């Protein structure tokens, strides 16, 4: 059984699938990293992903243009982000539970809208892989890294970009300040609410894109709960990526390779019960959260609403 998995073409297959499947994790987790760096805990990522997945799918089905689907996912993500920001920043509601509210709303709404607008199983023409000239001809590495659709490259590029934005720009400094000592940031004239609104909306747009990737860059279909907890795992990835883009990249790749392995175990018909293979990422999330506990730094104001009068 093990030697079946160790054949070269299978290893390449697992790694290539792993890189592709890292995209939704990366997009959602990098977005959530900004949200949490600013001090807001948005657990609604899963619900936003579901709405992003549906709206991307539906608009593509109607217009035949996947880029318009992406645009729809961005708009829907931004709107849900505004809702989350209003509830958690302006109204200072409990953030974990607000996120669950957003999840349930996205879950119900996406299911309702899908049945009203489409209602049957169908597929769309999603994004095709773009082989990068020369690089994709490199043996092994070419297949693993350089033969994917544009969203995969885009999400990988976002890793260094987020790092630069967060650590090398004034805006990034403000985000980090607001997440650690909002009182001090406020005294220095930084708009705590403004930064938090921006970060929640940015994170939500990226969650919407992560959802759209699933329907336009992965399955090309929509189904109930097709995100399968990936949004929640993305939130966990921010923890063990230690609020750092590179850590999040490592975590995303690790999880997506486990995910890919699980898919290949099914494809190869190995003698492991399907359900146990699918369980792996969830069990791993719990284990990983326990393993990094106590040793992690976190934004000091994470989850705490800011009230100037308090």
């Amino acid at each position, binding site marked *: 059984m093990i030697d079946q998995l160790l054949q070269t073409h299978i290893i390449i297959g697992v790694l290539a699938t792993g890189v592709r499947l890292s995209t939704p994790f990366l997009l959602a987790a990098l977005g959530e990293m900004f949200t949490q760096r600013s001090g807001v805990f948005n657990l609604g990522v899963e619900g936003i992903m579901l709405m992003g997945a549906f709206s991307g799918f539906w608009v593509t089905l109607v217009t035949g243009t996947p880029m318009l689907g992406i645009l729809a996912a961005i708009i829907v993500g931004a709107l849900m982000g505004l809702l989350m920001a209003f509830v958690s920043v302006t109204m200072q509601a409990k953030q974990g539970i607000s996120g669950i509210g957003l999840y349930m709303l996205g879950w119900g709404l996406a299911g309702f809208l899908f049945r*009203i607008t489409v209602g049957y199983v169908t597929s769309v023409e999603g994004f095709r892989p773009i082989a990068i000239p020369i690089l994709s001809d490199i043996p092994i590495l070419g297949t693993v890294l350089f033969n994917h659709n544009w969203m995969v490259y885009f999400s990988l590029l976002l890793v260094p970009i987020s790092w630069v934005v967060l650590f090398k720009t004034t805006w990034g400094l403000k985000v980090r300040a607001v997440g650690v000592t909002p009182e001090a940031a406020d005294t220095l004239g930084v708009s705590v609410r403004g930064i938090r609104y921006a970060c929640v909306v940015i994170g939500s747009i990226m969650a919407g894109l992560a959802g759209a990737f699933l329907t336009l860059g992965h399955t090309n279909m929509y189904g109930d709960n097709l995100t399968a907890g990936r949004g929640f795992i993305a939130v966990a990835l921010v923890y063990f990526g230690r609020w750092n883009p590179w850590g999040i990249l490592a975590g995303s790749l690790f999880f997506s390779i486990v995910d890919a392995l699980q898919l290949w175990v099914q494809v190869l018909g190995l003698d492991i019960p399907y*359900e146990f293979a699918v369980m792996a990422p*969830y069990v791993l999330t719990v284990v990983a959260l326990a393993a990094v506990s106590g040793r992690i730094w976190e934004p000091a104001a994470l989850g705490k609403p800011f009230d100037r009068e308090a």
Partner: protein
Amino acid sequence: MQIIFEKRESVSRQAVILVPIVSFLVSLLFGAILLALSGANPFITYGAMFSGAFGTWNRFTETLVKAIPLMLTGLGVSIAFRMRFWNIGAEGQLTLGGVAAAGVALYLSQGLPGWLVLLLCILAGCIAGAIWAGVPAILKAYLKVDETLTTLMLNYVAILFSEQLYYVSWRAPGYNSGTAPFPETAWLPRIAGRAHIGLFFAIILAGILWFVFNRTRWGFELKIIGENQTAARYLGIDIERNIVLAILLSGAISGLAGASEVLGIARRLQQGLSVGYGYTAIIVAWMAQLNPIVILFVGILMAALLVGGDQIQMKMRLPAAVGLVLQGMILIPMLAGSIFTEYHIRIIRPQKTGVEAEA
């Protein structure tokens, strides 16, 4: 001029009652807009949902069928929420409760007296639910691991595990999925229609929990832990031990919900056990402001949305997900509105009031 929120000296009783009601109305309004946009008449649809849930005695008993697991899981999560432990794992705890009850009913019931079988099934369900909640509780109490994520992840694990059992390991010969029917000794008695005595479990538990929360020392300790951990430590309350105990109880009640669901309704383990009761439970508990008696009534209301949704799907060809949308839409205005229970809104900058000692 500035709009500011000023902390109230005590929780506003008016807001406590008004916020859930207004939130429900907001959700109905939002749902009405959605229905109108999708070409359905909101009034007729809501009317059909209402009569679908309460119109005849039979339909009312079906509403009770769905209300029982919502009441039980709602009570379960309310214990956790009192201590600000965000147990989002009722779904998984319910699922494993059902699995454990099924396991006992199918494989351990031979040769035991009838009354003992049912008791053991229920007990197994409670224990399984408690264990499943206990893992995140211990991780939280002793390792400070965020419980929202761990309880959520364990839902997926529990559901996949139950699927493995009813699709593969425990599947009865001749069925595509699902176990063999349970022996009659493991059937939970029914009261009316398919509504079973799980309803009495919920009512009795609500009474007990009301008493524990309001009239016992332990209930008071939980309240202090939830409101002020520093104060709890000064008072010598063992926070870790109390968190674990309360969450074990929380999980056990959700496990009971799962056990009574499989023993009372399908009477075999099959698909349809994990349909989101554990998530709706969060809304039930929150809308009832964690009051165990109110949870019973909110449970019926939320069940009516689900049954009403099913009915309009059959009769009006509208998606049953309408019920789910309405539920999802309640929580958000309710959370946003909770600021009104603890704060006044002032338009002008007020004098700061002295800090009141709150017990």
